[in-house]
């Protein structure tokens, strides 16, 4: 009997509970890498075509910020380049959600108390959650390695380890944040924010030209993942950074566990008011109160992301410098101005797809309230189901609109400041952001429909949002057929600001969203609650 007694049983419990969730993360991510490899070998079959691609990318700071630098022009190297920035970030997201789920969430829901009373060592739950997170990350690493094996084993191994390293790193980060707060949601929020910071540090470092803050990428585990340089003279010593950081974070988490009581956080929880204020007087007040924390987190993320993305957009303007062929190509497309706008349109579209993730999360709050038994006392009061649902849906819709407006404004400020035209860019980009709203509402409405009609499958709302995001991020490069790309509603939006606003798609998307929402609410009214 020691502090770690029972770890093995807890790992088995975690694997049993997540027997669907873990494969649902690992397999699509692994398949994506394989699909990307075959797409690149199909699209750029010759060395010349690949070299020209690399040259245009190397010249463009903005694209470097998004995808990272191209270190090698082989098929393996280009796959590693194209997946090297987003892949490890997604692995990190997977790992941090997993670890918080098995630490703070278990504690918050009182299940850990039940387990802790058994023959379970004090540090076993954390150790088990970490082992689960590490194991899942390494399983993903193995799949990625296998997927790239045809391009050479050494590079494949390095690329797999980039995923695995980032996953393990953010698993350890989450182990620390899970000790800080009493709320699992807050723990996920802080860890997620740190992942976002890591992404931005990497983007800043990658975008920097000579003499710029290239070192910034070295502050981020996602930067390390890239700088392993798979297929480009692998730098194995970078693995030492992961091997150094992970044990430090794990030790920190364990020492925090030892210092606190069950259920307690390190950040103090203050007493609340004796009675409800005037704003907490109905279901709308309640929905706002429950959702405002998450929305504030998203809004600040959007403000920062918008500013950074806006600022690096300027890189696209200076594109043709030193690369005549790229400049010629741009001019034939209608000049650098259009290219900048096209880049901005892509960024706005990404902000839109992420806002759909937010919207689905806000919609699924309804299901969480329902399963958690908190809907019952509200619906047992003089509150109709439609009103109860509408309150949360209103937050979801208004929150999405606010996100898009803030993201667009921040893009406008970031880009405007770089080109000295804040006044001109600001309204233009805020408008471009809001153009995404009908598509966001559409995705949210699909989630409402599922929630109303097939509540057991409500989590499929996530699938819709992440499929949309994956299609937008990787679809075009995978050269998916038109109908597959059209599955994402965002492809139906006008590409503002590079294209003029077309009202028709906005109108019919909004109408469709309204119809789906109405159908979902009608189904909700007819079914059992709980």
């Amino acid at each position, binding site marked *: 009997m020691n502090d770690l007694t029972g770890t093995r049983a807890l790992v088995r419990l975690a694997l049993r509970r997540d027997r669907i969730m873990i494969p649902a993360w690992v397999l699509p991510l692994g398949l994506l890498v394989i699909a990307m490899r075959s797409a690149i070998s199909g699209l750029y079959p010759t060395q010349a075509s690949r070299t020209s691609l690399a040259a245009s990318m190397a010249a463009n700071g903005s694209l470097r910020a998004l995808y990272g630098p191209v270190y090698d022009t082989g098929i393996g190297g280009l796959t590693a380049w194209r997946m090297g920035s987003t892949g490890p970030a997604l692995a990190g997201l997977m790992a941090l959600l997993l670890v918080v789920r098995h630490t703070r969430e278990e504690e918050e829901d009182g299940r850990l108390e039940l387990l802790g009373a058994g023959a379970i060592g004090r540090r076993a739950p954390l150790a088990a959650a970490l082992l689960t997170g590490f194991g899942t990350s390494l399983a993903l690493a193995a799949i990625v390695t296998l997927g790239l094996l045809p391009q050479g084993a050494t590079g494949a191994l390095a690329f797999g380890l980039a995923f695995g390293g980032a996953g393990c790193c953010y698993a350890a980060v989450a182990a620390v944040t899970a000790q800080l707060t009493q709320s699992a949601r807050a723990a996920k929020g802080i860890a997620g924010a740190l992942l976002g910071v890591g992404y931005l540090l990497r983007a800043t470092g990658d975008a920097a030209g000579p003499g710029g803050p290239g070192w910034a990428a070295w502050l981020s585990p996602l930067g390390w993942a890239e700088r392993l340089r798979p297929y480009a003279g692998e730098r194995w010593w970078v693995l030492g950074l992961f091997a150094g950081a992970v044990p430090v974070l794990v030790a920190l988490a364990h020492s925090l566990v030892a210092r606190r009581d069950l259920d307690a956080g390190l950040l103090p929880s203050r007493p609340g008011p004796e009675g409800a204020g005037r704003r907490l007087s109905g279901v709308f007040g309640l929905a706002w109160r429950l959702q405002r924390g998450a929305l504030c987190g998203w809004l600040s993320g959007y403000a920062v992301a918008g500013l950074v993305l806006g600022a690096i957009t300027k890189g696209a303007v200076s594109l043709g410098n030193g690369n005549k062929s790229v400049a010629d190509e741009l001019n034939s497309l209608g000049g650098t101005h259009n290219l900048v706008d096209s880049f901005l349109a892509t960024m706005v579209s990404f902000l839109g797809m992420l806002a759909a993730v937010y919207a689905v999360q806000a919609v699924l709050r309804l299901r969480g309230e329902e399963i958690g038994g908190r809907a019952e006392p*509200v619906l047992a009061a003089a509150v109709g189901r439609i009103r109860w649902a509408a309150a949360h849906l209103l937050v979801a819709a208004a929150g999405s609109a606010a996100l898009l407006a803030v993201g667009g404004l921040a893009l406008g400020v970031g880009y405007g400041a770089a080109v000295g035209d804040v006044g001109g860019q600001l309204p233009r980009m805020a408008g471009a952001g809001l153009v995404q709203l009908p598509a966001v509402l559409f995705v949210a409405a699909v989630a409402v429909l599922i929630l109303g009609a097939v509540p057991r499958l409500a989590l499929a709302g996530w699938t819709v949002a992440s499929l949309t995001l994956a299609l937008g991020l990787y679809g075009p490069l995978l050269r998916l057929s038109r109908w597959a790309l059209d599955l994402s509603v965002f492809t139906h939006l006008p590409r503002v600001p590079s294209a003029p606003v077309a009202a028709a798609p906005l109108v019919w998307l909004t109408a469709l969203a309204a119809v789906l929402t109405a159908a979902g609410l009608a189904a909700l009214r007819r079914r059992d609650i709980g």
Partner: protein
Amino acid sequence: MNSAIEVTSLHKAFGRTQALDGLDLTVARGEVHGFLGPNGAGKSTAIRVLLGLLRADRGQARLLDGDPWRDAVRLHARLAYVPGDVTLWRNLSGGEVIDLLGRLRGGLDQHRKQELLRRFELDPTKKGRTYSKGNRQKVALVAAFASDAELLILDEPTSGLDPLMEEVFRECVREERDRGRTVLLSSHILSEVEALCDRVSIIRRGRTVETGTLAELRHLTRTSITAELAGPPNGLARLPGVHDLDVHGERVALQVDTDQLDAVLRQITSVGVRALNCTPPTLDELFLRHYRSETAAR
């Protein structure tokens, strides 16, 4: 005057599980009605149907003067509900939840709320996540008792309360009855039901097996008698209604159906009694009898 709750032949299935299988329940206005049954008998399901959260497959249900499914919102303004498993919003304080639930129902007596907080010794400034099970229940109870609802639906409301608080709860229920309110009290704590309820319905496997006043139900139960007699107890075994007769010389122990008590006592006294112990029927016995037969049926 019509009943506060009128349920006939209610059926509800979840997949293959038949949660309600022909439930009948009638609660008169102004009475405290005990709703008894072992775990999983369908008490909470029945209550959720009455609250319009679940839709019954078959059967009729009337609540106050409406249909619990169709008129849910209108009816809910007139009732207060304490769920069996109270879960609170983690980041809302107890006081906020009490006020919120009151406002959602259409009003709350602040004076009464303060008084109830004091009586239940509840700190309203703590956040939902820090309350114990008993304290979460107190939050829901204060919200319910501070409302001006004419019907209280309480689903095992005392399962986390300590004996002192249980006493406060009983006082509150009595006050509600004195104010003319109707209470449906689901419970498996028999002493609580005996102490509070005018009438009782016992359900088992989604079906009502007994219903009536406590006196009527007692009538259905058996009285235990142990006696030391002056001579051998002749003829007891032949009397109708005698069960579990156990004779050791002049000592005798038996159970008798309450409606046959008179004849049995006559027979005993005709022999001559040196000592007599007569235990009145309790609800426990009735309950256990039904419960045992269920266990046996399994």
